[in-house]
């Protein structure tokens, strides 16, 4: 048992932290979000080419640093600390994770492109009717010749407005919520028949509704077996869920630290509000949630390569706890700030917004408690 970082891992964290401290302060982030594109592409390029950060989690055979889940955890936590809107999660964690799992020629081709910063991937998995059930799909992929024809509507595809590629779940067979018949495709984002409606999200990202209207895609776009991709998709989403747990650690750590700083300087009734015992104990409770979020994130991350049952139970336990913790820390950070906490002016409110979205992303606490029980308490 060992909970320490390797030297390389420590370096990744420090390098990234320094870079973000220089480039990603609150004002810079606000400007990116307000810009036409909604991001600053130079940051992504720098992450790839100056820092080599996009390769941290990939194998050396593809030009990566030979890392994996722990490297993703480190990167996501640092990105969380500055509320980065960079598409690391869909591109590297999810897209990269799918490619690594699928292997073969497409991986050999695409992973170096990801590492080089030339590719951005949007994960088109959610559908209006599906809630958090990954198999509940109406989007269809009909075999036609050597390829497929895609039809359907995907909800809230984060980073889709920026994406070069889309990773799409679709039904190539079976009935609407059946485990069998689910396939996974990596396709170019600009194919004819792909219609997007773009919008910002409340927490600063850009996303799209994506409509597939008779989109012809090549057979080589298929990742994994036709109609047999659900287990792989579940593993990918678990990996992504662990990654946003790590992001939540960064976000809640800053919510806590920001609240502490504010409370030490803000005066009411003639003294710093940090001297009020009720607020002290509340900040202690926030601290305890942050610490437990870190513990659960490590637990879940170290479980990602376990057998599916164990992996799913571990990830659901972590996400349930962290959803609850993110709400607690976020709400109390705002409450302790008072009025200033609910304005756009201070970073704290924006951390709260991101924390609130993390709560339900890839499943609410209730969803994960359900799944945890199904796996461990079924009678």
């Amino acid at each position, binding site marked *: 048992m060992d909970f320490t970082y390797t030297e390389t891992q420590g370096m990744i964290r420090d390098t990234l932290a320094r870079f973000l401290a220089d480039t990603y302060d609150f004002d810079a982030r606000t400007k990116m979000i307000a810009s036409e594109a909604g991001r600053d592409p130079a940051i992504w390029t720098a992450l790839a080419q100056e820092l080599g950060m996009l390769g941290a989690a990939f194998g050396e055979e593809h030009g990566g640093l030979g890392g994996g889940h722990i490297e993703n955890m480190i990167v996501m936590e640092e990105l969380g600390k500055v509320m980065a809107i960079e598409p690391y999660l869909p591109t590297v964690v999810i897209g990269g994770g799918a490619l690594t799992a699928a292997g073969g020629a497409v991986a050999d081709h695409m992973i170096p492109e990801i590492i080089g910063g030339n590719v951005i991937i949007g994960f088109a998995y959610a559908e209006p009717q599906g*809630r958090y059930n990954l198999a*509940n799909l109406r989007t269809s992929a009909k075999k036609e010749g050597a390829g497929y024809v895609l039809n359907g509507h995907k909800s809230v595809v984060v980073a889709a407005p920026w994406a070069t590629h889309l990773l799409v779940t679709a039904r190539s067979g079976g009935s609407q*919520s059946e485990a069998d018949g689910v396939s996974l495709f990596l396709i170019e984002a600009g194919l004819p028949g792909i219609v997007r409606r773009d*919008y910002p999200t409340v927490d600063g*990202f850009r996303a799209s509704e994506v409509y597939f209207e008779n989109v012809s895609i090549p057979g080589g776009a298929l990742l994994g077996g036709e109609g047999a991709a659900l287990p792989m998709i579940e593993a990918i989403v678990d990996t992504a869920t662990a990654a946003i747990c790590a992001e939540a650690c960064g976000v809640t750590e800053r919510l806590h630290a920001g609240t502490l700083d504010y409370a030490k300087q803000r005066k*009411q009734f003639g003294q710093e509000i940090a001297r009020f015992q009720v607020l002290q104990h509340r900040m202690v409770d926030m601290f305890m949630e942050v610490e437990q979020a870190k513990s659960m994130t490590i637990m879940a991350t170290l479980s990602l390569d376990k057998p599916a049952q164990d992996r799913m139970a571990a990830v659901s336990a972590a996400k349930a706890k962290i959803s609850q913790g993110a709400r607690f820390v976020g*709400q109390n950070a705002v409450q302790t700030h008072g009025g200033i906490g609910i304005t756009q002016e201070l970073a704290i409110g924006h951390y*709260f917004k991101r924390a609130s979205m993390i709560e339900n992303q890839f499943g609410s606490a209730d969803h994960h408690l*359900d799944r945890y029980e199904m796996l461990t308490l079924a009678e």
Partner: protein
Amino acid sequence: MDMEFSAEDMTFREEVRRFIAENYPESLRAVQEEGEEMAKEDFLSWHRILAKKGWIAPAWPAEYGGPGWSATQRFIFSEEIAAADCVTIMPFGINMVGPVIYTFGTPEQKAHFLPRILSGDDWWCQGYSEPGAGSDLASLRTAAVRDGDDYIVNGQKTWTTMAQHADWGFFLVKTDRELKAQEAISFLLIDMKSPGVTVRPIITLGGEHEVNEVWLENVRVPISNRVYEENKGWTCAKFLLAHERTGIAGVARSKRGVEKIKAIARSEMDGERTLLQNPFFKRKISQLEIDLTALEFTELRSLAGEAAGKGPGPESSLLKIKGSEIQQRITELALEAVGHYGAPYFRGFGEGDNEHAIGPDYAHRAAPTYFNARKTTIYGGSNEIQRNIIAKMVLGL
């Protein structure tokens, strides 16, 4: 002891319900359903309809233009207004400065201001909070210095709700630098069009422009616009605080809010069942309903006490605390209910876009409303302050 409404009360309820059904502006309903910010005129249209009917100021004494209702009738009226999703009547004139003026004002002040509050001719805002003194009114720094028949006012106020529309504001200012805080405050009525008044927007988390900073630079205010004696403004402020807390429980609106959540949960699917059939989501709703019932009957007991001559005491802080917590929980459930569609954000983005909102109609305001609702435990004296009040005034701590 009984909790039934009398036949007269039931008839009254019918009358109110019918009036709303026949008179509430359809155009306003459409604006509300879009979920966009209301224009000043939107608020005023309904205000004027109620004013014309004589129902705009339920709590005012009849001599000043109130309808002369009983506490029970006022309760019924507020229930029906909420049940019909009517826009909120801005409280700053009707519920706040109005009662201060008819209680503490001069005959001239009463004659001039009260009719204009009732009619909606004057839109009011409240100049209380200052930067660095949120709930701590005793440490105000905005100061008024006498100059002939005027005060010259300098300072800065913040969290001033709807000041962008305001014709008049009521302000707490220091009128004596020597005296202790509470003995040095006066209550001034300031024309917001006076030279030296600047209003700057504060944008809140959901993107709303509801609150403002108000800067006062050498603003000249006639002494005749001071309510009550100089340095006795604290008396008005305390009176108003107590007044503000009644009704702050928001029971009727929250009841309506719970119904809306149920409707959402009936239409959202959770696998093969509706979200309302998910036992845990259903449990959150039932727990909320029960907590709301407890709040409702606590308010009714408090109203009964009031009717029996006991003014709304410091225990009304309970109504504020529990009422605001419930209002927040309603917005939490809405956000949880809409799933993925909590994320898209539209305000101010792609304006002029005629397409329908992304996701179901009820989804696109869930997150901003949730964010915005965090204010309910902060404003009007934060819930921490309310607990301090109960500790001190009720428990003797």
